C-alpha cells in the first residue's frame, strides 16, 4: 500500500473570468519511507495538490489516499496520518509556543503529550521560546513552530510545502537534519521547494508539475543521468552568437550551455572564440537538477519517457 496515492486528480476553478484547470489528471504514488520531491514553477499546481491531500480543497475529479484512507470519504483517518507544514507563515497570536503545540496535539486526540512536545522543542531549537507568545517570535522561529505543530501527533506522512522559503541557513540545516532523521525512522516525506539543490540532496524521487500536469517522475539519480550530462559554465559581458543564444541559460553574467560530449564542448568554445566573445571562469561540469528542471519546463510536451519510468 502506498503512503500517498494520487489517482487522476483534477481541479478546476470556475470564476467570473472563466475556468482555470489547476490540476489536469495527476497520478502518482509515494511509497512508505520515501523522501519525495514535488517540483514545478509557481502556478504549476503544487500547492493545490497538497491542499487536496490535506483536505483543504476538494478535487473536481479523481481520488487521493493517505495510508490507504480516502481523503474525502475517510477524512479523519487520512488527516491523522498527515502532518502538514503550510507555506504561509501563520500563527495564532493568542497563545504561547507550548500552548499552541498542546492545542494542536489535542485536536488530534493526543493528550499528555508533553514528553514529545519537549523533544520537538529541543530538536527545533525552540526550548527557550516555549513560553514566549507567538507574536514575539521572529519569522524563522515561527516557521520552526509550524514544523513542530505538524509533527505533534507523530504522523507517518509529513508534507512540507516550501518550508525553507525565506529561512536562514542555520534553520535550514537544523530542519533538514531533523526531517532526515524522521525519514530514516520510517516517516514518509513529501517536499515542495524552489531550492533545487535541496531537492537534489534530499529526495529519493522527484515529480515535476507543469501547468497542472505531471511532466516528469523518476528517481533523482535517473533524472540527472537522463539529462544532457555535461554543462559548460562561464562568465561574459558580451552577447552570445545568435545561433547559440536560444540554447543558453543566462543568469546575470553567468552563461550555461548544454553539451553532449567533449567534442561538443570544443565546438562551442570554438564558436565563441570565432564570434570574439571573451569568457572568464570557465567550468565544465555535470548537469544538476536545476539544469534538468529547466530543460523539462522548456519542452512543451510532457517528457513521455520520464513519466513512463
Amino acid at each position, binding site marked *: 500500500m502506498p503512503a500517498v496515492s494520487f489517482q487522476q486528480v483534477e481541479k478546476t476553478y470556475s470564476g467570473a473570468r472563466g475556468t482555470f484547470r489547476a490540476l489536469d489528471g495527476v497520478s502518482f504514488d509515494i511509497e512508505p519511507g520515501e523522501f519525495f520531491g514535488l517540483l514545478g514553477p509557481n502556478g504549476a499546481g503544487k500547492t493545490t495538490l497538497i491542499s487536496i491531500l490535506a*483536505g483543504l480543497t*476538494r478535487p473536481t475529479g479523481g481520488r487521493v489516499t493517505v495510508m490507504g484512507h480516502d481523503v474525502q470519504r475517510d477524512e479523519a*483517518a487520512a488527516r491523522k496520518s498527515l502532518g502538514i507544514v503550510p507555506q504561509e507563515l*501563520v500563527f495564532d497570536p493568542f497563545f504561547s509556543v507550548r*500552548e499552541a503545540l498542546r492545542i*494542536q496535539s489535542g*485536536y488530534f*486526540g493526543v493528550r499528555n503529550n508533553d514528553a514529545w512536545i519537549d523533544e520537538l522543542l529541543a530538536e527545533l531549537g525552540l526550548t527557550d521560546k516555549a513560553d514566549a507568545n507567538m507574536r514575539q517570535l521572529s519569522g524563522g522561529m515561527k516557521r520552526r513552530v509550524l514544523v513542530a505543530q505538524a509533527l505533534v501527533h507523530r504522523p507517518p506522512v509529513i508534507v512540507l510545502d516550501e518550508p525553507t522559503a525565506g529561512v536562514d541557513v542555520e534553520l535550514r540545516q537544523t530542519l533538514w537534519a531533523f526531517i532526515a532523521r524522521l525519514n530514516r525512522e520510517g516517516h514518509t516525506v513529501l517536499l515542495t521547494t524552489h531550492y533545487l539543490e535541496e531537492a537534489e540532496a534530499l529526495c529519493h524521487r522527484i515529480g515535476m508539475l507543469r501547468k497542472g500536469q505531471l511532466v516528469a517522475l523518476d528517481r533523482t539519480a535517473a533524472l540527472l543521468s537522463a539529462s544532457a550530462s555535461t554543462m559548460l559554465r562561464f562568465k561574459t559581458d558580451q552577447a552570445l552568437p545568435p545561433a547559440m543564444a536560444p540554447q543558453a541559460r543566462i543568469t546575470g553574467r553567468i552563461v550555461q550551455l548544454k553539451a553532449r560530449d567533449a567534442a561538443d564542448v570544443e565546438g562551442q568554445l570554438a564558436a565563441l572564440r570565432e564570434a570574439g566573445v571573451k569568457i572568464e571562469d570557465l567550468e565544465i561540469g555535470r548537469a544538476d537538477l536545476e539544469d534538468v528542471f529547466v530543460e523539462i519546463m522548456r519542452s512543451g510536451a510532457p517528457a513521455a519517457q520520464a513519466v513512463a519510468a
Partner: protein
Amino acid sequence: MIRLAGARTLFYKEVLRFWKVAFQTVAAPVLTAMMYLLIFGHVLQDRVQVFEGVGYTSFLIPGLVMMSVLQNSFANSSSSLIQSKVTGNLVFLLVSPLSHWAWFVAYVGASVVRGLVVGFGVFIVTVWFAPPAFAQPVWIIVFAALGAGMLGALGLIAGLWADKFDQMAAFQNFIIMPMTFLSGVFYSVHSLPPFWLQASHLNPFFYMIDGFRRGFFGTSDVSPWLSLGVVGTAFVVVSAIALHLLKTGYKLRP
C-alpha cells in the same frame, strides 16, 4: 473517544482565547451595559412603568443582561472564526480530524460560556441599582442558555460566511443590533404602535428577552411556553444550518 478529546481541546482553546483578553471581551461589555443602565435608568425611572409595581430600572436590568448575553455569544464565535480566517491560522483546525459536530459543539459551547460570563458580570454590577427578584428562576437559566446557544450558532454562520471584517461588521450592525434593540430590551413591546408591535412578534430576540424577564418578575408580554417554542425552534433551525455549512465545508474547503 478521540473526537471527544478533540472537541474538548477546541472548546478549551476558544474559552482561553476570550479569557486571555477578558478586559476587552468581558469587562468592556459589562461597562457598556452599566452605562445604558445609568443613563436610561436615571432619565426614565420616574417616567416609565411597564409592569405593575416594577420600577423602570428593575425592568431594564434583565433586558440589559440578556442583551449582553446575546451580543457576546454572537461576538465570540463570529470574531474567533473571522480572525482565524483572515490571519490564516484556521488551517490548524482544517488539517485536524475534528468532525463538524466537534466544531459546532466547541464554538457554540465557548460562545455560551462567554455570553453567560458577561451576562453574570452585567447582573452583578447592575444589581446594586435595584433589588433583584427571582420569581421563576428556571426560565432565567433556560432562556439565557438557549439564547446564548442560538446566537453562538448564528455567529458561527456569520463567521463562515464573512470573508472580511467589514462584512462581519455589516452583519452585526444591520442584523444583530436592530434585532436586539427592537426586541423590548428598553421597553415593553405593548407600548409600541401596532405595526411595530406586530413586527416585534416576528423577532425571535423578543421571545428570548420576554421569556428571560419572566424568570425575574413572573409576568411577561407573551406566555413563556410560546417563547420557549419560538426560541427552541430558532435554535434548532440555526444550528441545523450551521452544522450543514460545517459538514459541507462551506467557504472552508473550496
